[in-house]
């Protein structure tokens, strides 16, 4: 009798355990799609919201909600009339892939699908699209899928309004560079009888400001003849060195050279320790920068120094120094 009761209780326990196990399994099965329910931080923007506008760039960004191996991402734009030949302008968060358009759906296919963790921001930017010709409010359903294909996550983007009557604002910032010189000519009156008058310096202040992604380079050059007089025999004041490679501490008269200091820009190491170099007719790079200057201009100061003694003929010497700055927009 006792055994029978115990056997019944045991059977009930097993059944209860089985039920609990089945519930856990069912919950787990339902949890996957529930977790895949919504991508987060979903946004969609267009570079031009005029109807039928061509060469429009669509940018989609979202955050993966579920860890999964993403093979394809579909972006199904509501309505009709989406066209164009999309090109991949940028992709972050997922591997390299290809883009195709079929009807209203843009599909990004990852070449070699790898697992993307939950919480990873994904950004896709496609250029070369043509807006629908119908004005109205549009949304995009973004879906990440496995290779099966099975949906990993999905969500609908906020609406974008395409219109014919509004004013499309497209802000295009030009690639630009501003180059300023603080004076365009300098007069040096030298006199060998007094050291203070026999050795003089003319400072030239240059400022450079650019939005060039890779910064700029600054080169200097002068007349091939250097500091020369038009008087009989074309006397010259010798260059202090043959170029920046042979820069040296100021050796005294009679010489003509320059040294460079600056802020923001990277000044060539040849001028460290106030070393002077002679100008080169073909030009030499004296300063550079590898990125945009931003709001603060770089300053470069060039000290042009001339020293003479009684060996220098008393005539007027002239030279034209050209400072060339070249932005690098690559």
């Amino acid at each position: 009798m006792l055994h029978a009761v115990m056997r019944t209780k045991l059977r009930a326990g097993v059944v209860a355990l089985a039920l609990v196990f089945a519930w856990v399994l069912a919950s787990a099965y339902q949890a996957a799609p529930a977790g895949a329910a919504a991508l987060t931080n979903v946004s969609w923007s267009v570079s031009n919201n005029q109807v039928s506008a061509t060469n429009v760039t669509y940018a989609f960004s979202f955050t993966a909600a579920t860890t999964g191996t993403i093979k394809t991402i579909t972006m199904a734009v509501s309505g009709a009339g989406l066209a164009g030949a999309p090109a991949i302008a940028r992709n972050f968060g997922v591997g390299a892939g290809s883009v195709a358009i079929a009807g209203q759906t843009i599909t990004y296919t990852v070449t070699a699908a790898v697992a993307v963790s939950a919480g990873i921001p994904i950004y896709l930017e496609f250029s070369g699209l043509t807006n629908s010709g119908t004005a109205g409010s549009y949304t995009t359903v973004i879906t990440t899928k496995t290779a099966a294909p099975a949906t990993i996550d999905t969500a609908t983007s906020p609406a974008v309004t395409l219109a014919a009557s509004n004013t499309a604002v497209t802000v295009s910032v030009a690639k630009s560079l501003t180059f300023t010189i603080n004076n365009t000519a300098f007069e040096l009156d030298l006199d060998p009888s007094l050291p203070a008058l026999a050795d003089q310096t003319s400072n030239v202040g240059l400022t450079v400001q650019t939005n060039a992604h890779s910064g700029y380079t600054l080169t200097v050059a002068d007349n091939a003849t250097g500091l020369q007089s038009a008087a009989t025999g074309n006397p010259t004041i010798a260059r202090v060195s043959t170029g920046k490679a042979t820069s040296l501490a100021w050796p005294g008269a009679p010489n003509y050279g320059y040294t460079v200091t600056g802020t923001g820009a990277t000044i060539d190491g040849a001028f460290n320790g106030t070393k002077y170099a002679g100008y080169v007719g073909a030009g030499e790079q004296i300063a550079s920068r590898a990125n945009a200057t931003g709001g603060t201009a770089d300053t470069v100061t060039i000290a042009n120094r001339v020293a003479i003694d009684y060996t220098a003929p008393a005539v007027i010497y002239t030279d034209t120094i050209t400072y060339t700055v070249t932005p690098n927009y690559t």
Partner: protein
Amino acid sequence: MHPRTFTARACRNAASLAAIIAILAGAVPALAAPGPVGNRRPIAVSVPSEAAPLDPGATGTIPIRVVNPGSTPVTVRLTGQGVRFGDDGRVTISGSDPMWDGRIDFPASPITIAAQSYRRVGLTVHMPARIDPDFYFVGFLVTPLPNAAGNLTYINQIGSYITINVPGPRTRTLVADLHLPSFAISSGVDAKLHVHNVGKAAAMYWGENDTTATPGSSKPRQGLLDRSLLPAGRSRTVVVEAKPSFLIAMVTMHVHIFYPGRTDAATTEIVLTKHVLVVQPTALVLFGGILIAACIWYAHRRRKRRTQRPTRPRPRHPAKPTRNDARKRRSPSRRRRVPAHADAAVRVDRLLAQARANPKRTARSRPHPAD
């Protein structure tokens, strides 16, 4: 004299005097006062932000803008130049480019830009009938004309370029490598990413640096590398960084470089993975501190034990070591190691020494017990 005649003559004389003064002032630069004789001269040049698409054989006008932000008018001359790209974004504008000689229409004469103003200048490009799909760069110089005379004349010119994109599929190939030490003592690590364009066409690339750390963040931290154009045959080195979450961590860097393949509708990817053990200086300081604290504690404990050990009372008459005592203290094993005949030899030596000291005794006589 007629008043009108007098007035006319006076005007003529005044004008002549003014002209003479002006000629003298202009003709004698050596008499000018020393110092700056020119003025401040800013100029700016802007080009389109995107490459201009032009098909082979087509003619198109690409607008540029020459800006004079200064307070006096500036006259500039535009001339075509060759563009040469170097590694790491270096660019040089000089000489001429035979590819574009005669194919770009620049303004024939200098243009003057009023103060605080700008001029739009259209550069008309005549594309060759046969040209491969690629990015092409057309260089030019904007050179202000000298506006003052001095011993030294300074010219600030801007060299710039416009970019032309000949559409179509092209061969783009990039290679990349990541230089990162396997061990670093620092708060973060900087890796050098070297991207080299070994293809035949210029390539736009972008990328991301996903960093994970163990222990720490298993979810990658994304660092983005913005789009950059790399001309064929050129390379660029950029620094990518990673920071561990803990004082000591194994940091893994996954750097992805993306660039368009044959067409812009598909991208190619280069993945570089490197691991580095990062020990933050704070960890070393902490470790050093712990080590010093442990040493101090050990020394303190040892001293305390010594002071706590019961001291033995000093004997009033300390026993002097005798030869026998000394012999006793010697380890029996050592004694055992000494050969038996060694004692006898020592004894004979001692007797011989005594015999030499006291020659009355015979060498063979035995010492008296009273000695």
